[in-house]
């Protein structure tokens, strides 16, 4: 059992407590969901459970945090490692080793177990979590979902009683999310305590025992799993929570004809027989053809490895096509022309921030700067008060808006978004969705790669299905077909 007894925490150098008087009990075998808006203190709560607070993030603690009878705050990280295991958000940055087998053994090696013991623990993890196919492979050749399964395996080998997952679905597509839910179900039925913090939680709906809602560092609501799944929609949106049943959002989709009507006049983007392969005989894109008009918001969908990112890379001109043509307004475009015409908002905004202030970032690479346009754009994106700040000091959502702002100033006519809602709470998701609708209303052609069903339903007017290689309108029928793939 874990018990927070009037627990507060203040990071070193901060004026205000990030966690305020937390009182709660987590029973053995409980499946707990922590939720709340970005920056509410969820991650801080998890960090105090796995010993990163106070050992990695120094600060001042008040009250106590008990594991059984013993205070977690007084334990060494090595002692906690055998009790509480953590699977972190970003699968790229939680590996210490270069190959999977060694990574699975990493925790055990640190604990100084005998070789035979390590092997039997790793073998147990491999059998129980079905990881055989990933053994003896380079970590760098794995997909995000596969990396995460290895991360869970390496925690499993340490045999902790408590599992912590920090936004585990943020970097996963729907298939990997499904597998993650499967593993969590196994862990739950084996009697482990599981604590998950996530903005998207539809995949946990059959597993959650209880939910803690955090606001501004305090617990403001507690629900049982059932109560939480049945929350009134208005209340849920008021609390900034995502839906538990994304497939039900289809019912709110407006009439099919509206999407077609929204199409505007202007230059069309036409793709003819586009092909791409990295190596011979490994066709990723095979004779793709479609047409897009200004005002279209096109969701690129398809199974994992169907070539969604590759298609975007070719269309933006980052990759050169191996066959086929791309036209804009009837003119054939070379990759360099395409780069000039388009803008890609990457999943990880850090790659796209080059300068020392937000304002500088927006005007970077533009020779004649229109200062009215810049201040107007800053206003529109709610960034005016941050214009002199260093981009690195902004939150994830703000960084993303800065990169969108740069595309507005560059006046790109075709915009691409790669997973724009990964790790975003409801409010931020809706904000991105509204912004995209506004951009498309202004005559831009927009493509987005996303596995966020709720977001696609809210935002897209059309979908390009890479599996069937055809363009679909976003209507109830097509959404239901997609929902069947995602949630069945």
């Amino acid at each position, binding site marked *: 059992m874990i018990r927070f007894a009037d627990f507060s925490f203040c990071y070193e150098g901060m004026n205000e407590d990030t966690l305020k008087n937390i009182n709660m009990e987590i029973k053995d075998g409980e499946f707990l969901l922590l939720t709340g808006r970005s920056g509410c203190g969820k991650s801080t709560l998890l960090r105090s459970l*796995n*010993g*990163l607070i106070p*050992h*990695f993030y120094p600060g001042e603690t008040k009250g106590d945090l008990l594991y059984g009878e013993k205070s977690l705050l007084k334990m*060494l*990280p*090595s002692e906690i*490692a055998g009790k509480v*295991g*953590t699977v*972190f958000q*970003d699968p*790229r*940055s*939680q*590996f*210490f*080793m*270069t*190959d999977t*087998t*060694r990574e699975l*053994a*990493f*925790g*055990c*090696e*640190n*604990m*100084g*177990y005998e*070789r035979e013991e*390590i092997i039997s623990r790793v073998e147990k993890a491999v059998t129980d979590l079905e990881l055989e196919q990933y053994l*003896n*492979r*380079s970590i*760098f050749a794995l997909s995000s979902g596969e990396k995460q399964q290895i991360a869970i395996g*390496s*925690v499993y080998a*340490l045999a902790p009683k408590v599992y912590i997952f920090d936004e585990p679905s943020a970097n996963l597509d729907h298939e990997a999310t499904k597998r993650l839910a499967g593993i969590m179900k196994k862990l739950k039925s084996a009697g482990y305590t599981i604590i998950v913090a996530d903005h998207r939680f539809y995949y946990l709906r059959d597993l959650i025992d209880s939910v803690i809602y955090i606001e501004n560092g305090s617990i403001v609501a507690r629900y049982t799993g059932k109560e939480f799944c049945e929350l009134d929609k208005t209340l849920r949106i008021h609390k900034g929570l995502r839906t538990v049943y994304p497939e039900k959002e289809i019912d709110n989709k407006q009439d099919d004809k509206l999407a077609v009507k929204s199409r505007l006049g202007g230059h069309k983007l036409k793709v003819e027989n586009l092909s791409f392969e990295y190596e011979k005989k490994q066709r990723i894109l095979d004779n793709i053809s479609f047409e897009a008009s200004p005002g279209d918001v096109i969701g690129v969908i398809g199974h994992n490895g169907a070539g969604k990112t590759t298609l975007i890379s070719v269309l*933006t001109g*980052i990759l050169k096509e191996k066959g086929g043509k791309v036209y804009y307004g009837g003119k054939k475009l070379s990759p360099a022309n395409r*780069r*000039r015409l*388009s*803008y*890609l908002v*990457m999943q*990880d905004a*850090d*790659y*796209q*921030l*080059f*300068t020392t202030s937000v304002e500088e970032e927006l005007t*970077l*690479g533009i020779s004649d700067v229109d200062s009215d346009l810049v201040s107007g754009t800053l206003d529109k994106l709610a960034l005016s008060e941050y214009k002199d700040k260093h981009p*690195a000091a902004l939150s994830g959502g703000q960084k993303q808006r800065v990169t969108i702002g*740069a595309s507005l100033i560059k006046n790109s006519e075709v915009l691409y978004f790669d997973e724009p809602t990964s790790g975003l709470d409801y409010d931020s998701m809706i904000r991105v969705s509204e912004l995209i609708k506004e951009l498309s209303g202004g005559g831009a052609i927009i493509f987005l790669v996303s596995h966020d069903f709720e977001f696609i339903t809210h935002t897209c007017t059309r979908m390009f299905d890479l599996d069937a290689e055809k363009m679909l309108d976003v209507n109830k029928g097509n959404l239901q077909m997609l929902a069947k793939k995602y949630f069945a």
Partner: protein
Amino acid sequence: MEFGVCSDKSKAFIRLDPRSKLLLLMAISIIMIGGTTVGIEGVLRIICAAIPFLLLLSIRQYKAATIYLLLLGTALFCEKQVAPYTHGMCNIILMMICGLITRFVAGYMMGWYTVKSTSVSEFITAMEHMHCPSFISIPISVMFRYFPTLSEEYKSINDAKRMRELGHPLKQPLTYVEYILVPLMMSTVRIADELSAASLSKGLSAGEKRTHICEIGIGSIDIVAIIGSITMFVLFLVY
């Protein structure tokens, strides 16, 4: 540099300990580069040239072994049979190229074998067995893990940069470097931070002695290799 993933035992006929590989590599390089072709040193050279060939065969790198054999054979043939018929500049260039090949290719192939047949894990385990302190072995293991990450990060940043048409590598080299380095440092610092947090939560820096899943050990073949290397060294130095 690319290390093989945890090397597969079933694939190799001969399994050497990373430590004997390093010793052999040293012996072969020194003898091949520094030795003459006459007397006992000539015999040593033949042995040293044969070892990488056999070891490459032992890890089923038939293509590499064939290339090595052809390269060395051609160079020796040119040195002995073709060069005497050439004069002046032509002779100098030919002798130089052949000399370089005959002296360096064996060491290079031995190095290639070492890299190809040793996994990072085995290498680090060997380092720790040699009582290399953890403040050296841990950073080195992180370094191996970091190279592929750096290249992944670089690729993404470069893509982002090309979209903004920032800094041409030839026309504005400084801007080019700046717009690569700034985001690269940002993401590297973040990854390093998250990596330390993750490793701490898995009990690294526990102060206890670490153990290893990878099994390395000195076997009978290693003893042959070690004694062989030392004997060759001694013969090489004495004569």
